[in-house]
């Protein structure tokens, strides 16, 4: 049934007609009702303009001069006229024909036949009936309905969004839908609740890019931050430190250790390494090799080389291939095991650097040797999935929960990670300073070109910022703008935004003044162009004698591209635009340095 209905809908849509599924039903009713034409207006109809939907075409086609309720246009039957004419005939015949497809086809044909004929309005009763029918017709229709009423950019009042301006539809018309799930759902139910079709509605707010700190800002803030839990975290670590003797004993007995739990275990493990080293064994100090698995670029080769440096006699040349290195180490361990087992400490064994199956297998084979003790830390919750049974057996792990709550200072590059997570240009080199550094090493011409580019970009941003169409990095504009961009595709966003975390009653009342929406509403749907057009820049460059030919120009640009100082984007018209991916303040700073 539902599928059939969808089909009908599609067919109707294709023909640029107001879709409605239950049209035939309505039609039948209206046919018998022989109602007078009424021109009921709903104020919300105005908003229909926003949507470039077929309904509009229909509305204009109608000879009726009055602006019509969009809603009614949507659900009215365009073929009513014809139906009226055939009133004397037996409508029952049509009614008895239950095939929805045939019905829709018939309507379509009629519509074509009727051509430009104006459609008529139903009276209030018809509308009520239609609404009643539609009420049970399924949620997708409802959603459309809502979205049309509130095509205005808005965020539903129940989202935590702080910039909640008093906008959106009038309170009275809002359908009550609880944003938060019913309490105490079992985990699987919660999963299905949060993944239900159409259930995942988020607001279209965008994160102002100046919200994300740069490296230096972040570093400054984090060093200034005083953790209120410092004492507790310290105590937690002390508690784990009391396990050192136990761990040492377990290692001595031939087990390997795996530490898991939330928080950086780096400090704890280093402490343990010192503890072990401080214990003077009967056979001398144990060798300790520490691998920082989180360091970018660390691979199995580095691990093996480090081990080789300790295990192999001096002057022995390691082979180049990891497999050969491993064989060499294994045979060295088998033939001349160290007097004290070597302690291999691997921070973040489950880091993506070391996650390759071959790497894990190599480590496992090494760890299986009695001459080598492995102490590994794992950060992710799913790390046991890295190992199959044979690896697990080789690794011979005893697991300890060492939740430390210490921040992952060395392990994660917070700023880059977040940039990558949010799809910001994550790979730009070290911020503004990095760019300055690169520019210093480039020839004069290149520096000039970059200066022109930055200056132009700022000019463009300024001029378009005045027109309020550019996504200038201003908080208030952003969401309005984004709404305009996304409004079309995500009508449902406006309706219900349950899934963003609620503020648990700590919310502040929305106090931003209402903003004039008109400007943003008339904006073009496409993203406002950003950056400088390729051609423009080229001409500018030629004017300033930076370069003489396009080839020359391209060579200069290539350098910038290589350092990710410039990104090239295509705008809606297909013209290439060059963008320096920095915030306004940074751009200004750069320009100052360059001039």
């Amino acid at each position, binding site marked *: 049934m539902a599928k059939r209905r969808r089909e009908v809908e599609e067919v109707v849509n294709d023909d640029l007609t107001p879709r409605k599924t239950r049209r035939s039903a309505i039609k039948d009713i209206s046919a018998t009702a022989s109602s007078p034409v009424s021109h009921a207006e709903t104020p919300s109809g105005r908003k229909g303009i926003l949507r470039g939907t077929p309904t509009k075409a229909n509305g204009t086609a109608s000879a009726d001069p009055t602006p019509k309720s969009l809603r009614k246009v949507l659900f009215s039957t365009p073929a009513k006229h014809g139906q009226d004419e055939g009133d004397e005939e037996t409508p029952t015949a049509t009614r008895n024909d239950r095939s929805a497809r045939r019905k829709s086809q018939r309507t379509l044909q009629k519509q074509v036949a009727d051509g430009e004929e104006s459609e008529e309005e139903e009276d209030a009763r018809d509308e009520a009936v239609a609404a009643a029918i539609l009420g049970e017709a399924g949620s997708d229709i409802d959603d459309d309905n809502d979205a049309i009423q509130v095509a205005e950019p808005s965020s539903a009042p129940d989202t935590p969004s702080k910039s909640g301006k008093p906008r959106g539809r009038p309170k009275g018309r809002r359908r009550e839908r609880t944003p938060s799930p019913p309490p105490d759902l079992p985990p699987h139910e919660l999963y299905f609740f949060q993944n239900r079709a159409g259930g*995942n509605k988020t607001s279209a707010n965008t994160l102002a890019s100046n919200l994300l700190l740069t490296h230096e800002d972040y570093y400054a803030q984090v060093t200034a931050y005083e953790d209120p839990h410092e004492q507790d975290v310290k105590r937690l670590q002390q508690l784990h430190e009391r396990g050192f003797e136990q761990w040492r004993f377990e290692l001595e007995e031939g087990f390997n250790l795996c530490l898991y739990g939330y928080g950086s275990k780096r400090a704890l493990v280093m402490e343990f390494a010192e503890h072990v080293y401080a214990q003077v064994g009967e056979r001398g100090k144990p060798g300790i090799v520490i691998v920082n698995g989180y360091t970018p670029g660390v691979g199995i080769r580095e691990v093996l080389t480090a081990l080789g440096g300790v295990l192999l006699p001096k002057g022995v040349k390691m082979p180049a291939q990891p497999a050969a290195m491993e064989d060499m180490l294994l045979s060295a361990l088998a033939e001349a095991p160290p007097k004290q087992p070597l302690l291999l400490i691997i921070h973040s064994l489950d880091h993506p650097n070391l996650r390759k199956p071959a790497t894990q297998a190599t480590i496992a084979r090494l760890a299986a040797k009695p001459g080598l003790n492995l102490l590994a830390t794992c950060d992710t919750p799913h790390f046991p999935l890295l190992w199959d049974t044979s690896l697990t057996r080789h690794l011979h792990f005893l697991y300890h929960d060492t939740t430390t709550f210490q921040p992952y200072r060395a392990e994660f590059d917070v700023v880059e990670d977040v940039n990558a997570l949010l799809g910001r240009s994550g790979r730009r080199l070290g911020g503004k300073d990095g760019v300055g550094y690169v520019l210093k090493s480039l020839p004069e011409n290149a520096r000039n070109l970059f200066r022109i580019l930055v200056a132009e970009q700022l000019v463009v941003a300024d001029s378009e910022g005045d027109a309020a169409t550019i996504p200038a990095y201003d908080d208030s504009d952003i969401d309005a703008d984004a709404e305009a961009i996304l409004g079309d595709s995500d009508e449902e966003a406006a309706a219900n935004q349950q899934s963003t975390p609620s503020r648990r009653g700590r919310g502040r009342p929305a106090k931003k003044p209402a903003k004039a929406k008109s400007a943003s509403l008339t904006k073009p749907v496409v993203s406002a162009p950003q950056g400088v057009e390729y051609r423009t820049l080229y001409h500018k460059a030629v004017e300033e004698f930076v370069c003489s030919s396009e080839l020359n120009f391209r060579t200069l640009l290539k350098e910038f591209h290589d350092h990710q100082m410039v990104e090239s984007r295509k705008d809606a018209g297909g013209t290439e635009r060059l963008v320096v991916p920095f915030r306004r303040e940074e751009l200004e700073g750069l320009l100052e340095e360059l001039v």
Partner: protein
Amino acid sequence: MSSSQRSDLQSDAVSSHKGFKVLGLHGGRHIEKAGRPGEASALDNINSATVGEISSFLDEAGHNQETSRIPAGIIIAGPSAPHTSLATQLAKHENDSDSNRIFVTLSSGSGSHLKAILKTLIQKATSRQSALDDETDEVQTTKQKSTKLLSYDLQLLHDFVTERHLQQVVVTIDDTEAFDSDLLSELIELFGYWRNRIPFVLLLNLATSVDFLQQRLTQAAVKCLSGRLFDVAPSSDVLEQVLDAVTSSDAPSYLGPIVMGAALERQSDYIQSIDGFVDALQYAYMSNFYANPLSLFLKPTLVREEVPDDHFEALRTTNSFRAWARRLLDKNRATEVKKVLQDNGALFDLARRGIGDGRATLNGMMLAVTVVRTLQQSLPNTFVSRKSSLYVQAMSGKLAGSAMLRALHLTVRKVPSDTAVKILQSVLALSIEDRALSECADVATELDELVRAQAEAGKPLRSEEDIRNSTLRTTVHAQKVELSKHKTSLSQQDKDFTALLRRFTDILTRFFSETLVNPKTLLFNEIFVYDLRSPHREVFTPRPRHAIERALASPHDYLDCECCAPDAEEREEATLAATQPGTAILYQLYLESGSLINASDLWQAFQAVMGEEREEGQTRALFQRALAELRALGMVKSTRKRVDHIAKVAWRGL
């Protein structure tokens, strides 16, 4: 809730460290090390027969080189494959005998195509010995000067083999099933082509069946092989052997039902290889001897002066000691209790005695278990219980009155004389020096006489309870069916036999009731029965996901700070507080959201929780850090579906 959970969380750590502090680490180690050899030798012996067979197979294959087919040993290891212990045993076995063969182990990870596999094969085969003896190196280099060979050319191996005069190249394939069947077939065919030059021998480890292997190989490959089948002891048998070793009469301490049950369950459900079980046992012993200071008393040569005073205090606080004192007081033997309470020397003697008695009792219990199994084995149509399950039942004190034992009694009473003789013989063969069972010998001799007297009759004696000696009669009386049991008249011999059987079962009943006691009632069972679930479970079956989720969802459980403590009244509402670590706050917000999260809204919510008074830059830094941590923990990932959205990846508690 949280404080109790917290203490529970930390208790194992604390309790195990108490051991280190109190016990000066003396004594325990010797016993522990002494307890291990039995286990280890049992492990060594497990597959010695199979290993011997395989190596003789290799020798045989070495002698007749003429066959064009590759000799292939197909080792059915069952689900415990890849059986590394077998490979190592084989290698060890080979090291002892000086034969001219090299072993190369290939696994499915060695390469995904023929070239790669051959490369690893050659690399492994040729590099292994060049590292060992270097006098032949020159030969190798000079000889290879002439032509440059590709690294996957078997000619390399051939040269190597001829140089070293190797008799065999044994290629072991660990996980045959994991190999791509085409690749395996190609490899075998290629070996077949080189068979006249390189003396290959294949050892295939199979987890499934030979039929399956044959299906997967091409016909040409199958034709190249001449296989021989070897069976590896199934892991359950190995487990029984290990258990035998552990519960042998000189075991210093026993594992309780909880630990053993957990280890056995894990063994049968999740891991099949015996190594895991051995680890579990080892860890249990380690925990007992290092975390339990009282295990000092298990040292055979312990003298009074070696024991620090606080150990005696600890002894007096044990539950079993208290129960013992209560029992004595009930019997009005207060002086004894008083003496032990006041005098450490007396307590020392008591402890030594108690431990000795307790261990003897447990030893008797193990014998009882053996008797039960012997009975089951000699009775026809009886299911023989596994020793492991009987052990767990016995140690938890549930075997004594169990239905299984009762059924066993009834069956014994019904047996005819020939079976009875067998049963008695097998029980006597156990040569158990137990008062109760010693009477069995009398029963046996009497039975022998009876049977001899009956021998002429040619049919065995039947006891009264035997079904064949009673008939059921149904009579229809006044339209009702009456069921009556009728005993057939018994001969005098039968009656004597019945009496004997009764005597035997009575002896058994007495024996079982004496030996099968609940270990928890033994004095000082805390010392020689180790049964703590706590460190064992966390150490072997961690729940890292749960730990992280808990740390983030209720950080108070770990941090135990005042600021984040949830109020008793409004527990649900108060879980989110500005004082909590940033990641924890963000995680809880994250839990509430759907599968797509708007980063901006998340930020707003985060900021709202953190409060206005904090400087915004600070909050931003915390937000950023929390977001990065969530990402690194694999909770969120970036999505292209919508701008500035992140996708939720993990649901709590799933």
